[in-house]
């Protein structure tokens, strides 16, 4: 008899303790940050120190992929911005007459879906090609290029489909020693722009004792 009485009492106690604020799950809205790098591969086979190597990136398509992978709607995004840049030499053919190339120059960016200026996004000075082989090297960002990319992100959020052209630009005096038809500079490298996409996401979160004060 006592046992039959005790069971409902204990259940009520258990249920009461578990339902400190009505339920186990609470809907919480939190800012989720997605880190993504847009990377562009460049192949340099140069017999002169003056060259321009362009590559096209469908920026909108890349961001669409991030949203799809993470099950996020474009309308959930509250901000998107450039974080940093880096580059890495992925393949290097050591020249016959010397060990390395010392390169300076810049990477430019422009929109090709709309008319607009070309802006420098990354500058590099006296970079040893051999030293950058297999090493992700932080790059110096340039404000005009960052602004162009941030504007492209804003335009994407506004419904546009930005397409970008990145280009490696080298001019006279930028490569030491200067390449020539008999001393061709040959290496592959990847330049990456890291950016954050911030999305406000509502999620059901277990907070079983949500109504109670902190454990001392």
């Amino acid at each position, binding site marked *: 008899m006592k046992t039959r009485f005790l069971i409902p009492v204990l259940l009520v106690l258990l249920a009461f303790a578990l339902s400190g604020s009505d339920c186990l799950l609470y809907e919480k*809205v939190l800012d989720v940050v997605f880190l993504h790098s847009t990377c562009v591969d460049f192949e340099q086979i140069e017999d002169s120190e003056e060259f321009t190597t362009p590559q096209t990136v469908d920026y909108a398509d890349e961001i669409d992929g991030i949203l799809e992978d993470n099950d996020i709607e474009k309308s959930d995004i509250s901000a998107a911005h450039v974080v940093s840049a880096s580059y890495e030499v992925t393949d290097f053919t050591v020249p016959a007459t010397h060990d390395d190339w010392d390169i300076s120059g810049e990477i430019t960016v422009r929109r090709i879906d709309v008319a607009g200026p070309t802006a420098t996004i990354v500058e590099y000075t006296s970079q040893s090609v051999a030293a950058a082989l297999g090493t992700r090297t932080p790059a110096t960002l*340039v404000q005009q290029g960052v602004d162009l990319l941030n504007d492209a992100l804003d335009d994407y959020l506004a419904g546009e489909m930005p397409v970008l052209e990145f280009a490696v630009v080298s001019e006279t005096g930028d490569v030491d020693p200067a390449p020539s038809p008999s001393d061709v500079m040959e290496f592959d490298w990847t330049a990456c722009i890291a950016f954050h996409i911030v999305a406000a996401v509502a999620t*059901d979160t277990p907070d079983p004792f949500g109504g109670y004060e902190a454990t001392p």
Partner: protein
Amino acid sequence: MRCQTGLMVAMLAVAMLLVAVPACAQIADQLSAYTGANAEGYLQPLADAFGADLNSNWYHSAHIAVDGFHWGIEFPVMGVIFSDDVATFDATTQDGFTPEQTVEAPTVVGDGGSITVDGDANSQFTFPGGFDLNSFGMTVPQIRLGNYMGTEAVIRYFAIDMGDVEIGNIGLFGFGVRHSISQYMEPDFPIDMAAGLMYQSFTLGDDFIDATAFTLGIQVSKSYGWIEPYGGVSYDMFSMDVSYESDEESVEMTLDSESSVHLTLGVALGIKPVMANFEYNLASTSSFGFGLYIGM
């Protein structure tokens, strides 16, 4: 009636574990923005709470009969209420962001809003928000079997394949042994005393979380009919390996909660075959527990 009671509590136990899984998928997303010390700082309060919960509420009496068949089906609930001082941590910008800056950013239990700082050339770095959690709780079915020469075994087990849910499978296995000390005392020794240890292993997803907990200690209790106060002192250890992807690169880290001495004070209520308990655990991360037990 007894069967319905057990079923209801079992369903509650399963529900508590299942509701945690979608949140774990979201935690993996949040972690993807972090590596190294930032990821550890972000996740540490949850690891501490998880370790505290695993290492508590696995006994509710120090009385272990010397022999005879004894069994129990138990549904312990363990919880931690987070204090404000674990809601933030010192986070430092990463991923080549310049200049390097350190700010007070939300941990996994902190505020849901992100924090953004400005850098060189109009670049910006955003620290993700937390889940605005006030508490962490868990339960797992537990079986107690014995006794042989004053020794009993405790088994915790739960496993489920979450199918198409992003995070995958969830599983917990624990095995503990307790031995009566008071059987070696004089018959008029006033209290029951036991010593025991328990090992537990928890996995979530293929590799997302792999945690182990170990506790070793002594317990005392004194029965006054339907009420039995109990207590214990133990030494706890907890380690949690976390594996996730950040910017398409695999990140692996180990979170070690502070190994600590753990003091338990509690009371068991009821008359067999149905009993309940309530306890408080004072440790580096303090926790509380309660539960319902059926057995003889």
